[in-house]
């Protein structure tokens, strides 16, 4: 005879089995998302047969988002989440870095490039049920421009400070933004104070997501204050992000490091292919791989290139993004007089065997760099070739400059990997041995990335160092403008005669309204930077990857790592 507890346990087990059975059969018979009814334009992948519309897509991220208001963000993990919740006036073409229509279904600039008219998409609703219209768009512009107090700190509003520079109450800084007015319900007219290559393309960046004005108001969105050791953020940024995207925010569980998003059933476009998306923060790369192997996540970002093959052998799909970055050796003549001679800098460049470095130290798909930005960016100079590996020429240039006995301190970052630099130590060693091969004495200095490396390079302590950049949007200015417009940053171009010439040329190119003329100017400038100025040595572009399980389809990778996960479906 069974005891009472055993009977209870057996009963519970039976119920459990019955329940799982039900869930299973429901899943099997559930209809595929029939055409995923959307209001119109579709550029997303159609759900494949057998896709489970009730599935939860679990993604392993390298870190947790800082908050959920992208206007106050500057890190990739935050934008990864907010990109699903929000949309911008403009968007990136899926799989590319080019911009296209987003919440503005069309837009055009005036002849002088100072007035931009955005036709707002009809029938779009925010997650709180309010409508998107031109007034809502202008409310967002006004919100950005009218930030006050501590919110103006560039540690809080990094992108606005760097792209638009200046707020309404700052008389000493001229902001790029002038005004936003509505000419009818669905037309917003934005005026800017000067012409720049980055406007309006910059509006596709995640930082310029369009929020629901009602939700911003209700949850006190602008209330950022510095309190002793840090900034405090309002409820809006922490718990109530409200956009128009294909996913709605459903909560953040800090104890588990999980952000949960739900399909927005009222989305204006193609609805998300999965019912839920959970983004788990798993900082340790090998743990992300193990989670994928154990089947507890469906994908993760930035798999280590040495694992790509093993992952594919296991049946996972490694999706290699187009490279939208640059790795360079930065040079800084402040502490090494010899570097002021361009022949020395050229010698350093000729001495490096880029081809071999790319072949042996960088992932499949990486390319040697001839200039400071990748091919996909407008203004790329196609005639320019990477410096050939020519040790003899390097030696003779050094001799000519009177520096045959050149000795240089070369900085190596530790405790870091970046998409453009998957294994800093091996890249460092390759360049170091190339330099030593032409008779240069290299004094290596290793410093932790956030423990002195970045500070030291910024403060001109490192004569030669490894650094790079991943583009935010398709603009030459985002690369060379960031590097060389300022004269007292890590490159310290103020040490060279060409400093003003270079700054002026960059500003002139950036403010040229005609795209074709601008591209021509940038292209010529690239040649000059690579051949005559050489404030640093472009090394390579290397593609970062993202990996998903075999059950996942529909993922479109983005060179900007700005993936839209609404096209993802899961077969299970």
């Amino acid at each position, binding site marked *: 005879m069974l005891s009472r507890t055993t009977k209870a346990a057996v009963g519970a087990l039976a119920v459990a089995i019955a329940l799982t059975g039900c869930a299973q059969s429901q899943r099997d018979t559930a209809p595929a998302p029939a055409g995923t009814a959307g209001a119109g334009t579709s550029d997303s992948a159609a759900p494949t047969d057998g896709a489970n519309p009730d599935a*939860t897509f*679990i993604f392993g991220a390298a*870190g*947790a988002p*800082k*908050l959920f208001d992208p206007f106050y963000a*500057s*890190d990739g993990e935050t934008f990864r989440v907010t990109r699903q919740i929000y949309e911008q006036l403009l968007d990136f073409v899926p799989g590319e870095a080019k911009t296209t229509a987003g919440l503005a279904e069309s837009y055009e600039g005036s002849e002088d490039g100072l007035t931009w008219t955005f036709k707002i998409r009809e029938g779009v609703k925010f997650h709180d049920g309010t409508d998107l219209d031109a007034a809502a768009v202008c409310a967002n512009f006004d919100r950005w421009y009218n930030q006050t107090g*501590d919110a103006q*700190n*560039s*540690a809080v509003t*990094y992108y606005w400070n760097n792209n638009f520079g200046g707020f309404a109450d700052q008389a000493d800084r001229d902001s790029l933004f002038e005004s936003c007015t509505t000419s009818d319900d669905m037309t917003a007219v934005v005026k800017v104070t000067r012409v720049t290559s980055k406007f309006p393309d910059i509006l596709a960046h995640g930082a310029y997501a369009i929020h629901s004005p009602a939700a911003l108001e209700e949850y006190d969105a602008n209330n950022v204050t*510095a*309190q*002793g*050791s*840090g*900034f*405090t*953020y309002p409820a809006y*940024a*922490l718990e109530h992000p409200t956009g128009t995207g294909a996913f709605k925010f459903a909560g953040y569980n*800090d*104890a*588990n*490091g*999980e952000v949960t998003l739900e399909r927005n059933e009222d989305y204006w476009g193609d609805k998300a292919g999965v019912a839920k998306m*959970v983004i*788990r*923060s*798993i*900082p*340790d790369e*090998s*743990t992300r791989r*193990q*989670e994928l*192997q*154990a089947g*507890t996540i469906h994908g993760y970002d930035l798999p280590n290139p040495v694992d790509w093959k093993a992952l594919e052998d296991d049946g996972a799909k490694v999706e290699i993004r187009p490279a939208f970055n640059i790795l360079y050796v930065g040079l800084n003549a402040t502490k090494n007089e010899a570097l002021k001679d361009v022949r020395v800098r050229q010698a350093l460049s000729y001495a490096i065997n880029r081809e071999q470095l790319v072949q042996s130290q960088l992932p499949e798909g990486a390319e040697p760099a001839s200039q400071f930005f990748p091919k996909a960016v407008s203004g790329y100079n196609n005639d320019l070739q990477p410096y050939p590996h020519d040790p003899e020429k390097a030696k003779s240039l050094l001799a000519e400059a009177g520096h045959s006995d050149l000795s240089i301190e070369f900085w190596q970052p530790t405790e870091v990997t*970046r998409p453009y630099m998957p294994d800093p130590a091996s890249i460092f060693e390759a360049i170091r041995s190339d330099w030593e091969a032409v008779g240069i004495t290299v004094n290596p200095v290793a*410093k*932790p*990335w*956030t*423990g*002195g*490396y*970045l*500070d*030291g390079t*910024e*403060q001109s302590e490192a004569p030669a160092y490894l*650094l*790079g*950049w991943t583009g935010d949007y398709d603009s030459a200015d985002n690369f060379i403008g960031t590097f060389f417009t*300022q004269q*007292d*940053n890590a490159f310290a171009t103020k040490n060279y005669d060409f400093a003003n010439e270079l700054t002026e040329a960059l500003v002139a190119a950036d403010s040229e309204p005609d795209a074709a003329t601008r591209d021509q100017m940038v292209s010529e400038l690239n040649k000059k930077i690579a051949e005559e100025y050489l404030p640093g040595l472009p090394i390579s572009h290397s593609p970062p990857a993202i990996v998903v399980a075999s059950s996942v389809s529909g993922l479109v990778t983005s060179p900007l790592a700005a993936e839209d996960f609404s096209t993802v479906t899961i077969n299970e």
Partner: protein
Amino acid sequence: MSRYIVRRLLQAVVTLFVLSVLLFAWLRSLPGGPVSALLGERSTPADRAALEAALGLDQPILVQYWRFLERASQGQFGVSTGVLPGRDALEIFLSRFPATIELSFFALTLAILLGVPLGYLAARRRGTFLDTGSVLFSLVGIAVPVFFLAFALKYVFAIQLGLLPPSGRQSVGINATHITGMYVLDGLMTREWDAAWDALRHLILPAVALSSIPFAVILRITRASVLEVLDEDYVRTAQSKGLRAPTIRGRHVLRNALIPVVTTIGLQTGALLAGAVLTERVFTFRGVGHALAYGFETRDYAVLQVLIMMAALVYILVNMVVDIAYAAIDPRVRVR
């Protein structure tokens, strides 16, 4: 007894104050700062200056420390810049601490349940296979780095055998109610058996990894201590008196041998907290250690200060309890 406790508490306050001064100065002398940690290659000298001004980091360190004390006296221990920006550092500690208690408790229990009996048996059967085997085993426990052990455990039990989850504290999709923040306990309290079971499964591998060093230390101390006591005159006297073996072992050998073991267990809580930083990080077990590791990466001064101070407080309190526990075990010790 109460006077003793008051005296120990006062000592603790002084210790914590000195620690806070050293910690404050040390953190700010670390190379790098919150801006480069947060912005990476996007940080510029201008960004850094702006942030330092807003947070008062441009002031002399004494001024900074004075302001810190002022705020601390009002119960404000600072706001996080990196771990969970905008949130109060003490709140972060309180929300993360249950996970660490749960993990440390399981790890320590495991270490004691295995270490004490094995150490005792090894001493009793000195020179046998059991003795050399367990000594060797404990050596491995001390020598193998936690991250390697963690990796091996995950590879075998999570990936090859698929028995246990490789990381985290809870499976996605488990809808559990949380009362204490200790997931196993919560599951038992709310009778959500599936949640308790799920949490326990997540706890096993990190607890085993974390227990490896305390287990080895406890085993070796127990063995050495039992061997020493077995040689004592009073044990021989007891034997010649004709006392029964179980009485000798229980009343005379074990009780006396356990005193150094209890001390060791107290000291091991310090090692547990240190080990938790690595273990929690590798297993993405989001407790205090996980926050501490991330706090260092992002140079989150406020969070680091609070977490380290609280860890020190816990360490002091645990060792106070251990001292009091002596009295219960050893009749010669009288606390005043």
